[in-house]
């Protein structure tokens, strides 16, 4: 019984996270200016990281944790590089 509840709530949570990624992707395509696109890329990698974590809870293996960690590290680096590019026009001076 509780296993069924857990399974369905994980499914609902994954649907919500995919919907969140969809909202961010809509703003990423529509976004009036470049800073909106960078902001939504940032929101989108956080949602993707959470989605990988829920897949990890569902499957019960800890491999997904390392994938989530790598996604968060690389997403931070890419967001910082894009924000620096918007500020100065180049990434490495």
């Amino acid at each position: 019984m509780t296993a069924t509840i857990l399974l369905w709530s994980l499914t609902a949570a994954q649907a919500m996270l995919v919907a969140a990624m969809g909202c961010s992707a809509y703003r990423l395509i529509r976004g009036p200016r470049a800073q909106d696109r960078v902001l939504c890329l940032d929101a989108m990698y956080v949602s993707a990281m959470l989605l990988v974590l829920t897949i990890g809870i569902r499957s019960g293996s800890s491999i997904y944790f390392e994938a989530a960690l790598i996604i968060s590290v690389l997403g931070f680096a890419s967001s910082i590089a894009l924000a620096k590019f918007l500020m100065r026009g180049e990434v490495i001076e």
Partner: protein
Amino acid sequence: MSHAENLPAWAALVTAFLVLAGAGLTLLGAIGTLRFRSFFERVHAPTLGTSWGTGAILLASIVCFSVLESRPVVHEIMIGAFISVTTPVTLMLLARAALYRDRTEGHGDVPPRSILRRPPSS
């Protein structure tokens, strides 16, 4: 989904609640990026997902794996610490870049550069 039967009822319910709460908060933040008007309002919305959205799902993962392996599994705290440290840095840098771009291109009603600060003498 074979390991879910091994979870006791309280752990399964706590995990389900935390996962749903975290995913709901993340979805609210993503809807906020659609509905707010200006960039400087929009920059607040995704922090809903990066603070308690991430926190709740990481807590759910900690509860689930700690009960399953009957030992404390806390390596998810690493992701939480990393996200909570890096998000303000990213968003501050992005908001400063947006302010700079709005000022130099002269659109949007951003406040002007402070008159108290002397322009750099070059």
